[in-house]
């Protein structure tokens, strides 16, 4: 089992948004996170990534095998496409960036500065970073935003290849990616507002 979550509760800005979330993600499996805006998809992914602590519950996950891609792509505008990818390759201790460039059709753009890319091209560069990371478990937050139809297919193909090779992916998305994947709808886990349980923490984060 690549990822095992049980009875997880997450907070966003001091408010409880999700509680009682339990699911498993196996190797070779892709799972789609669904739910209306504000349900807590991003919060769940950020909690899994370790960017924020979980309120309760357990996450069993090998962080050394985990790669997170958020809303922002983390692209440096004044660096070229290749320089951006090479930087992440060095950070993750991998070397080969060519498969990633190939997979996301960035070949003709390699020497272009990132600030000259279109929104969709930037997104493709951001997604290529995941391939460069060489990690098994991917967590993606709205990966298809600003991608055109062909690029979405490219992305779906990449996810399929990744899963067939034993990887796993957890994808928060609103669109149909066109492949069979388990769906986790977060709506039933929406937390009922219980501010009182948080008030006694006694820490006012709004102070700063």
């Amino acid at each position, binding site marked *: 089992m690549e990822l095992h979550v049980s009875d997880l509760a997450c907070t966003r800005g001091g408010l409880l948004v999700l509680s009682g979330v339990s699911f498993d993600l196996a190797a070779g499996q892709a799972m789609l996170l669904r739910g209306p805006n504000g349900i807590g998809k991003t919060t769940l992914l950020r909690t899994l990534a370790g*960017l924020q602590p979980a309120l309760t519950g357990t996450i069993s996950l090998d962080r050394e095998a985990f790669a997170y891609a958020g*809303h*922002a*792509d983390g692209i*440096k505008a*004044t*660096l070229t496409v290749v320089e951006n990818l090479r930087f992440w390759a060095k950070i993750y201790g991998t070397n080969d960036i060519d498969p990633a460039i190939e997979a996301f059709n960035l070949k003709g753009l390699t020497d272009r500065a990132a600030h000259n890319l279109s929104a969709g091209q930037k997104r493709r560069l951001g997604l290529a970073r995941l391939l460069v990371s060489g990690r098994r478990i991917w967590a993606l937050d709205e990966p298809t935003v600003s991608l055109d139809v062909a690029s979405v297919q490219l992305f779906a193909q990449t996810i399929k290849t990744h899963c067939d090779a034993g990887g796993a992916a957890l994808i928060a998305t609103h669109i149909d990616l066109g492949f069979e994947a388990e769906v986790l709808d977060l709506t039933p886990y929406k937390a009922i507002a219980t501010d009182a349980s948080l008030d006694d923490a006694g820490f006012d984060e709004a102070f*700063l």
Partner: protein
Amino acid sequence: MIALLLRDLRLAVRSGGGFGLGIAFFLILVVLVPFGVGPESAILARIAPGILWVGALLACLLSLDRIFALDFEDGSLDLLATAPVPMEGIVAVKALAHWLTTGLPLTIAAPFLAVLLSMPAEGMVWLVITLLLGTPALSFIGAFGAALTVGLKRGGLLLSLLVLPMYVPTLIFGAETLQRGINGLATTTPMLLLAGITAGAVALLPFAAAAALRINIR
């Protein structure tokens, strides 16, 4: 880690990176002082150590908010936090990159600018020594301040208010060592204290800054 250092240095020298901003500010400040206090070299030579140190400190302050704010805005900081590099290391490397693009150029440029303030020649060596010992502390203290204010919109002013008081000891001992060096007095005590502050800042503040960053990216 080295990749991060190289990236930050590369970003600093590319357009909009802010390399040279600090130096230009330092130059303008030093050029303006004689207009303000008059051209008598006796007066200028007397206030030169203080002016040069305050100038270096303010020039350092200019580029502090870029240390983390740019990475925070484009999402790189989140991704770096989930990457297999320790947060403390990220802070230390970014502070080092800030010093290499700000403190070190200031140190190299200072003797040339000191001539404009008619500083005596025997002071030049001390000027370079004190800046070399003191400016790393400015970058590391500044990185801590930048980590505290990273999520705030227009946090630059708050950053200055937080960081400037913490710069006071470095300023006092830096300028004192320089003054004593020029006057031919014993410099060991203030210089050791200056070096001690730098060593302490470099050793401890990356941990404090990393803790602040972890809270701010939640």
